[in-house]
């Protein structure tokens, strides 16, 4: 869309006359190619040759969305031709070849332009359209291949939100295909393997919030799929809490981890929507004891880390939740809350207005 992260010095200075001439030549060649593609498409020459011209142009400029549209116009025609003029192929082979060619092209381009919306979108289009033309095992094989592609993209940049979004889309497609099949799939469900994938990702890098986020969306589905009973749900919740608590202990300054902790705490709330719940049957007594336990754990960390504002924010947030369910004797005093807010104001002056508002709303 625009230039990101290119040093200003990289483009500085005046071009030499020779450089200017070369650039003008490049512009002419580029404009000729654009003109050629547009003319051929306007003449409805939807052929393999014109398809190759769009490949050339898109390789030079994958952001040129109209050329992607032209490519799809050509592909629609070629895919609907039952008798291709390529004698070496049967019709089915021809279709599969067209689809795999586009998958290869978009893969190559994504490696250079991993954040280009149009490339991701085209990949999605070719697979959706291919599905209608290919037999079920072939299209399933192609969709499965997409998971590998996304894993490669996420290896290169584990926060790429295009890749994460595409990953969720592919999983949903595969699950749809599975449901359509009469035969139940072998091996663990995709929700299980996706959950495992997020475990792998957060173990590699605790600050990968994209992985934590996906985990927060997968867990409720996973438990429903497993038809987990109350004990199993509580076990998983406890496991998640201890996973994130040990992560907090490792790096209490990493906000990704704290957000996941907030997610787990938010599932305790009586207002938590069903589709986000982990344990379905929390009593206020339960909630109170979880809040107490978390506060105790976080206060222990405080002994070694007095300058981490996330600790004070968590303590204060949990204290507020505790007051809402109000069971038993508070494990904290108003004076504690006052001290935590003081600490936030001292340690995090950037957000002073927020702490002031909080103080007012809590009457501290």
């Amino acid at each position, binding site marked *: 869309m625009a230039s990101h992260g290119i040093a200003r010095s990289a483009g500085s200075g005046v071009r030499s006359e020779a450089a200017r001439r070369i*650039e003008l030549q490049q512009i002419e060649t580029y404009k000729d190619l654009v003109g050629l593609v547009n003319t051929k498409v306007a003449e409805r020459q939807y052929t393999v040759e014109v398809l190759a011209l769009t490949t050339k142009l898109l390789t030079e400029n994958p952001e040129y969305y109209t050329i992607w549209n032209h490519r799809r116009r050509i592909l629609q025609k070629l895919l609907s031709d039952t008798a291709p003029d390529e004698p070496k192929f049967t019709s089915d082979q021809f279709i599969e070849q067209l689809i795999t060619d586009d998958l290869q092209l978009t893969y190559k381009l994504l490696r250079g332009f991993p954040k280009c919306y149009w490339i991701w979108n085209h990949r999605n289009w070719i697979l959706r359209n291919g599905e209608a033309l290919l037999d079920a095992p072939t299209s399933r094989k192609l969709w499965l291949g997409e998971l590998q592609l996304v894993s490669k993209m996420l290896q290169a940049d584990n926060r790429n939100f295009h890749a994460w979004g595409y990953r969720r889309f592919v999983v949903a497609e595969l699950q749809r295909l599975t449901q359509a099949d009469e035969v139940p799939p072998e091996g663990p469900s995709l929700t299980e393997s996706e959950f495992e994938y997020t475990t792998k990702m957060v173990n590699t890098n605790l600050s990968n919030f994209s992985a934590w986020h996906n985990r927060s969306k997968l867990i409720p589905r996973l438990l429903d799929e497993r038809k987990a009973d109350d004990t199993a749900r509580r076990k998983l919740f406890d496991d998640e809490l201890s996973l994130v608590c040990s992560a907090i202990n490792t790096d209490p300054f990493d906000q990704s981890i704290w957000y996941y902790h907030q997610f787990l705490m938010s599932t305790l709330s009586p207002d938590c929507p069903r589709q986000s719940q982990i344990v379905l049957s929390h009593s206020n007594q339960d909630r109170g004891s979880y809040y107490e336990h978390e506060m105790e754990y976080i206060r222990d960390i405080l002994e070694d880390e007095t300058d981490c504002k996330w600790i004070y924010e968590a303590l204060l947030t949990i204290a507020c939740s505790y007051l809402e369910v109000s069971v038993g004797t508070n494990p904290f005093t108003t004076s504690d809350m006052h001290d935590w807010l003081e600490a936030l104001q001292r340690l995090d002056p950037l957000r002073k207005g927020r702490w002031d508002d909080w103080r007012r709303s809590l009457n501290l």
Partner: protein
Amino acid sequence: MSLVSGPGRGGVAAGLPQELSLYMDKHVSYIQSLDRRKDEREYWLTEHLRLSGLYWGLTALHLLGHPDALPRSQVIEFVLSCLHENGGFGAAPGHDSHMLYTVSGVQILATLDAFDELEARVQGGRLKIGQLVDIAGLQDAETGTFAGDEWGERDTRFLYGAFNALSLLGLLHLINVDKAVGHIQSCANFDGGYGTSPGAESHSGQVFTCLAALTIAGRLDLVDQDKLGAWLSERQLKNGGLNGRPEKKEDVCYSWWVFSSLAMLNKQHWIDGDKLANFILQCQDPQMGGFSDRPGDMVDVFHTCFGLAGLSLLKFPGLIEVDAVYCMPRAVTKRCLSK
């Protein structure tokens, strides 16, 4: 009249200015120069952004108080040359119509108060833009969200685009607003933020689109305002700049997406405005004008627009007031929305 959207050439690798001031005149001439770079490859490689580039440039000039720095009639001429029979705008003549450029086209015409010229040139032009394929026809009847064009990519960016353009045209009744609002709600996450689609991670750009659409629909009551405000305030980093998601780098364009979102929630004071202004000012090219994503990087018209819009929202002296929902001069949106 069209402006190149790619990175600028000629910026010198100079040290930062000692005193941070706003180089208003430099920015005006930088934007004016963008139409004169046809001998650069970048000019041609960014043709697919042209109409949005013009919106970014024109908005920046209006905020700088130089609304006439680009010739009005030539701008209108170019915008109308991008209008398709189906009522949508392409990025440039010969480029297919798409929601992104339709919104830019409408925003430019609104800013120039040129809806009458549109009607004079294209009979029933306003209704045509609203009614035909490009806006109202792109709503998904089942989910309420919007596609960008006939090829079907769906994203909350396009939903906001439809709300933005149709409300400026006074044609919001053409779409199912309640259904779209329901879709936005289904994109909400536990952290109070919103993603591109249900299940997607919260992202400041998407938070802006969802919040702005809800503001237009008058449904901010559906937002978990304290949670979202907290999440947005945590986008500010020590150097004053804002990032788009947890643990990411700062970038001038988020000065807009994040700070305008805070403004819609009336929580501008939840971050340090002086530090943000300082960060934005550091991203100027003091010699050639324009803003970059981070200090010392190449400038472009996209970051120039959102840097200035951020400063305007921070009430930086000398700038015209911006509308947090539309990223257009407030006087323009007042005029359009009161009709």
